[in-house]
């Protein structure tokens, strides 16, 4: 049984359709990235999963329990976008509240802050924290009690590159231990390396839901081949492979996925005219645009 199952979930705000017939599941240990423009329905979907708002129709189950039920809430942790806390409390005090609410020993607060790299600041008031520090407190509270489902809304906004890497290594540990992770992000390059599956929302429709490799195949976007040539051979190479000369030593060509090996064989046939070859697959950004556009057209 998947940890999280949404089937045919629909939600409207007044006459504005926020989610249309969305069906999605996340298995234990799976990391799923939810992508979409602002207003595509990501936060609405997350709030429905968390039981903060009700869906108009469709069913949502977390380990078999309906969203928002005590069992579902016990199994789920959430890190909201731009997470906020009471400024008068210290990081430790804030975490102790959350530990008590989950029935966990308050002594864990120190370890949790240590784990997100905030050990030293735990006794200072959150009012004096930077955005990145608040985000770490947010992550620390999401780790309480080994959640079975983790919902993260733009979790790395406000974090520097090193903190992002630490953040994803914590997520890896959790996923390794069986936590199902649903996260939304704008940082596509990050998501590309750190998730198992990508779900794209566009105008409330789920327009893609697959691994990156499969999406790449389905989108059938052209692959770019960059050829570094000998300085005196750039014209000849460009002519023989029917590519485009970029500068004095580089030629580019594009090809379809199923044509890739044929084209590469042609390049290899050029022998020592070529110094190096680089194959650039379509980026997640291009794939994302491809599917988002398809959704917008519907």
């Amino acid at each position, binding site marked *: 049984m998947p940890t999280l199952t949404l089937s045919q979930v629909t939600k409207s705000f007044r006459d504005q359709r926020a989610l249309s017939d969305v069906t999605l599941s996340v298995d234990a240990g799976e990391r799923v990235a939810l992508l979409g423009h602002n207003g595509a329905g990501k936060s609405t979907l997350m*709030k429905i999963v968390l*039981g*903060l*708002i009700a869906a108009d129709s469709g069913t949502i189950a977390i380990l078999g329990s309906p969203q928002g039920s005590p069992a579902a809430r016990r199994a789920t*942790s959430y890190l909201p976008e731009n997470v*906020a806390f*009471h400024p*008068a*409390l210290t990081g430790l005090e804030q975490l102790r509240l959350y530990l008590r609410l*989950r029935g966990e020993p308050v002594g864990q607060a120190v370890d949790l802050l240590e784990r997100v790299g905030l050990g030293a600041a735990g006794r200072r008031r959150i009012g004096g924290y930077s955005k990145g520090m608040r985000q770490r407190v947010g992550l620390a509270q999401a780790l309480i009690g080994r959640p079975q489902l983790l919902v993260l809304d733009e979790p790395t906004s406000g974090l520097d590159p090193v903190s992002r890497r630490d953040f994803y290594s914590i997520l890896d540990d959790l996923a390794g231990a069986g936590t199902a992770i649903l996260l939304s992000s704008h940082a596509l390059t990050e998501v590309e390396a750190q998730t198992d599956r990508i779900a794209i929302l566009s105008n409330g429709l789920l327009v893609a839901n697959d691994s990156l490799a499969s999406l790449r195949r389905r989108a059938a976007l052209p692959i770019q081949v960059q050829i570094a040539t000998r300085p005196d051979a750039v014209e000849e190479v460009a002519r023989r492979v029917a590519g485009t000369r970029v500068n004095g030593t580089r030629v580019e060509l594009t090809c379809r996925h199923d044509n890739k090996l044929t084209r590469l064989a042609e390049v290899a046939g050029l022998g020592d005219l070529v110094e190096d070859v680089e194959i650039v697959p379509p980026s997640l950004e291009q794939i994302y645009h491809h599917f988002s556009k398809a959704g917008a057209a519907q």
Partner: protein
Amino acid sequence: MTGIAAIAICEFKIALRNRWVAIAVVIMALFAAVLSAAGSAPSGELGVDKLSLTVASLTSLAVYLVPLVALLMAFDAISGEQERGTLPLLLTYPVSRLEILLGKFVAHLGTLALAIAVGYAIAALAALAFDGEAVQGLPALARLYLTSLLLGAAFLGLGYAISAVAARPGAAAGAAIAAWLMLIVLYDLALLAGVVADDGGAFTRSVFPWLLLANPADAFRLYNLAASEGTSAATGLGGAAQTISPGLALVSVAAWSVIAIGLAAAAFRSVKP
């Protein structure tokens, strides 16, 4: 239960840190001290002990101060969480909205209980120091203390309801002050105007007593002034107010504290995070 305790511990810490505990204690202590100093009137002429006299004065003080302090502590409870953006995360935890509300209530009522205890203790010690007979007034003081907490509970509940309905703390603060003005000041003025205009007619005899009972602050005053002989002698309470039994007034204050918390719970339930 653990949810209520967790929220209460956290809220009390916030109240301590935001100086709310200190402010409430100082306000109550200051007014009680001023009242004791000014109230050294000749109690012998009335044949009343000094503490009963103090209780009568404290009742008039508490009617204004307890609702005000309660409303000021409560107005931010839900609107503040909404404004800061802390509410959605809290609501995803395995804790019900009623537990969140009751946790805040326990912390705020505890703060009030502490402040009122300090204030009344100062006034009582001053009375006991100057009059050996003052121990006679201790039961009246105990009644005043417990009903002050009930009055505080009613206005905390009202404050939470206002806080849940108002989207922003600023609006909630304004509405809380307006509620205080209407229930504590204007309500009595309106009743007074009614009684004067009626000149001993049907309104004064049959409607007025019930209107007094309907307002928790008036019921609180009625109960404390009528429940002991000493205090009623000290205030010369008479007329329409004496037609109402103190027991009924007590029931009114207690009922309002439960109704107000119920209203707050209902208002909080319809808040969309």
